[in-house]
């Protein structure tokens, strides 16, 4: 931030606190460029794209592949699943418990409309990979210019 503005900066408004508000807004604006637009809910996802297809990966180890629910509507991908806690035998106790368990639902906004018929999913080594091809109707059309 430049201070060369001097007193003029506070002089612009009557309320000096508005300046702090302005700084906060500015900070948020700068930070928002680095922070993703998505919610950040569990599970964390990475999204890859090449304009024709989207690849969504997520790390959900220890889940039964059959218990993962994937649905696509338009530009939204919804992931649902659950992981049960370890069943403790009589007399056993936790020394450390860091692993997650429970249910999750996550909605992911995709950059373009998906051809829901052709969505593919693969679950290997605890990583779920979903391939989502762009809907044909939405693909950019190339327009050729005719010479007169």
């Amino acid at each position, binding site marked *: 931030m430049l201070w060369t503005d001097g007193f003029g900066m506070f002089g612009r408004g009557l309320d000096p606190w508005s300046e702090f508000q302005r700084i906060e807004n500015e900070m948020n604006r700068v930070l928002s460029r680095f922070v*993703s*637009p*998505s919610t*950040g809910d*569990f*599970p*964390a*996802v*990475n*999204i*890859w*794209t*090449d304009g024709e*297809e989207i*690849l969504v990966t997520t*790390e*959900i*180890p*220890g*889940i*039964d*592949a059959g218990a993962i629910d994937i649905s696509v509507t338009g530009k939204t991908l919804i992931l649902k699943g659950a992981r049960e806690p*370890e069943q*403790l*035998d009589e*007399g*056993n*106790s*936790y*020394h*450390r*418990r*860091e*692993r*997650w*368990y*429970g*249910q*999750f639902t996550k909605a992911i906004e995709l*950059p373009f409309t998906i051809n829901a018929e052709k969505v593919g999913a693969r*679950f290997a*080594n*605890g*990583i779920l990979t979903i391939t989502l091809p762009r809907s044909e109707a939405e693909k950019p059309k190339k327009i050729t210019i005719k010479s007169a």
Partner: protein
Amino acid sequence: MADKSKEMQKKEIEKTDLVERTRATKIYNPDVDIIEGKDRIVVIADMPGVNENSVEVTLEDNVLTIYGRVDWDVPERMKLTHAEYGIGDYQRIFTISGEINREKIQANVKDGVLKLVMPKNNMPKMKKIAVKAG
């Protein structure tokens, strides 16, 4: 269900002062559960991306090291447009007590979860010495 433990981010190991690394990847701390029973200790670690061939478990003296290598590639034409988690190897080091029967440790990996079963020694190492009045 908003389970608190699920909100935790993948934790990257900041310092690896024990070993010099030759692989240019990040290393993450896997989340673990340690369960103690009467006759065994079970360590469960979430290490998505590893399989039975890429995980190494070593026990040297009393130091148990879990290391998982993650090899992952995306199609070259793809660009990462949104990232919520980082990809890298896993490592975690524990000190274990001497009561573990080292010969009978079992390890298996399924769906990115490593499970180590470490049976305890039945033979008590400590011997109580009776103190007689002189």
